[in-house]
C-alpha cells in the first residue's frame, strides 16, 4: 500500500503526517515528527520507555500503529509543560541515566490524572509497566507520592 497522509492530534495541535499503515506510533513520533522524547527500548511492549498518553491513558507507542491514533488526543513528554510530576522527578532525583524517565513520567502523569488518591497497590500495578535499568524505583515511588500528597 502507498503511504497515506493522516492527521494526528498531538500535544494540542493537528499534525499532517505521511505514514505507512505498518508504521508504529513510536516510529512516526520520532522519525516523522521529531518528537524524540518517547524512547525506543524493547520495541515489544515490555519496557515502557516509549510510553505516551492517549485520551488520558498511558500507551506504549511501540504497540500502537500511527493509523490507530487518528481521532485520538495524543500527548507526549514534549506536551507536558512544567507539570508537577516533572518538577518532582528533579526534586527527588528520580533518575540516573534518564533513558526510562519520559516513559515513567507519562505513566505517572496518567495515574495522577486517573487516580489522584491511588493506594500503594494501584501505584505498583501501574508502574510495573515500566522498567528502570538503574533501579531508581524507590525514588520514583517517592516522587509520585509527593505529587499525590500535594494534590
Amino acid at each position, binding site marked *: 500500500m502507498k503511504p497515506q497522509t493522516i492527521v494526528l492530534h498531538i500535544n494540542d495541535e493537528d499534525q499532517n503526517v505521511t505514514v505507512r*499503515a505498518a508504521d508504529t506510533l513510536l516510529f512516526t513520533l520520532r522519525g516523522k515528527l521529531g518528537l524524540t522524547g518517547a524512547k525506543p527500548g524493547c520495541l515489544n511492549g515490555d519496557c515502557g520507555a516509549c510510553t505516551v498518553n492517549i485520551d488520558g491513558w498511558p500507551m506504549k507507542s511501540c504497540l*500502537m500503529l500511527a493509523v490507530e491514533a487518528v481521532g485520538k488526543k495524543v500527548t507526549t513528554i514534549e506536551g507536558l509543560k512544567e507539570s508537577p510530576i516533572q518538577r518532582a522527578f528533579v526534586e527527588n532525583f528520580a533518575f540516573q541515566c534518564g533513558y526510562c524517565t519520559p516513559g515513567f513520567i507519562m505513566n505517572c502523569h496518567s495515574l495522577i490524572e486517573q487516580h489522584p488518591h491511588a493506594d500503594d497497590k494501584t501505584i505498583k500495578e501501574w508502574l510495573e509497566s515500566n522498567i528502570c535499568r538503574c533501579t531508581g524505583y524507590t525514588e520514583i515511588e517517592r516522587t509520585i507520592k509527593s505529587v499525590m500528597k500535594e494534590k
Partner: protein
Amino acid sequence: MLPFDFDYYKPASLQEALDLYQYLNQQGKKPMFISGGTELITLGRINLIYTEAVIDLKEIAESQVMQFSGEHLVLGSSVTLTKLDEGNLFPLLSKTAREIADHTARIKITLGGNICAQIFYREAVLPFLLSDSQVVTVRPEGTKVVPINEIFQEQLRLSPGEFLVQIVTEKRFTEAPFFTFKRRQQWDTGYPLITIAALKIDNEIRVALSGLCPFPFRSQQVEAALNNKGMSEAERVEHALASLPRPILEDVEGSANYRLFVLRNLLLDVLESLDKA
C-alpha cells in the same frame, strides 16, 4: 515498525467487516482481523505473522458491549482488559485478566484479541471455559451462538472470515466462589509459568489451566478426580495429575517436571480455598 506493508481498514459495522474480509480474501490479501492489535506488532516485527490487509474490529459497537442483560453477562470482544478490570462485572475474569502482560499493555489488549491470540497463554479464556459461556461469532452465513466448550478446542475454532463478537455468561457463574493464581518463575513480573483458574458451582470444583500445555484447557477428568470426596486431598491431586492432557510444556520458563511440581501445589491451594466454600 513492521517489515511488511498492509492496507488498514476500520469497519464501523459487522456487515462491513464481513464484506471487507470476503473482498480482500478474493484479492489474495490474506486479511487478518485485529482488535487491540498488539500481537500484529509483536509477532509481525519478527516475521511470525504476515498479512497484506488488516481489518480492525475495535470500533464496532457490538464488540464494545459490557453489561448484564437480565440473567446474563454480555462482554464484547473489543473490551480492553483494563475496562474489564475497572468494570469488575465478573470478578474471576477481572482477577485472571489483571495478570496478563502489564497495566499499560492491558489498556490496549482486548478480550477477543487475547482469546484468539497465537501466544499460547490466552488466560482470558479460562473463566469462560469454567462457566460454560456461549460464544457469539459472525460469518457470511449469519450470527452463530455456540458453547465455548465446543468451539474452544486448544484454540477458538473459527472458519475463515468468521470472527468473535461477544461472550455471554450466566450471572450465577459471575457470583460463584473462585480461586485464580498466576505462578511465575521469577518474582511478580516475570513471564508466566502456570495460571490456574477455579470456581465452585453446584457443589463441584471446576479447574482450567494455562501455561501447562501449549494451549489453555479445562479437563473433565481432572475435575472428576478433584471432586472425588472419597479420597484424601493429596490422593485427589495425584489422580488429577495423572489425568492431564499432553504434552506438558518444557521450555526456558520451566521444565515439565517443575511445572508438575508447581501444579501439584496449586491444586492443593484450590482444594484448600474452595473445598469448604
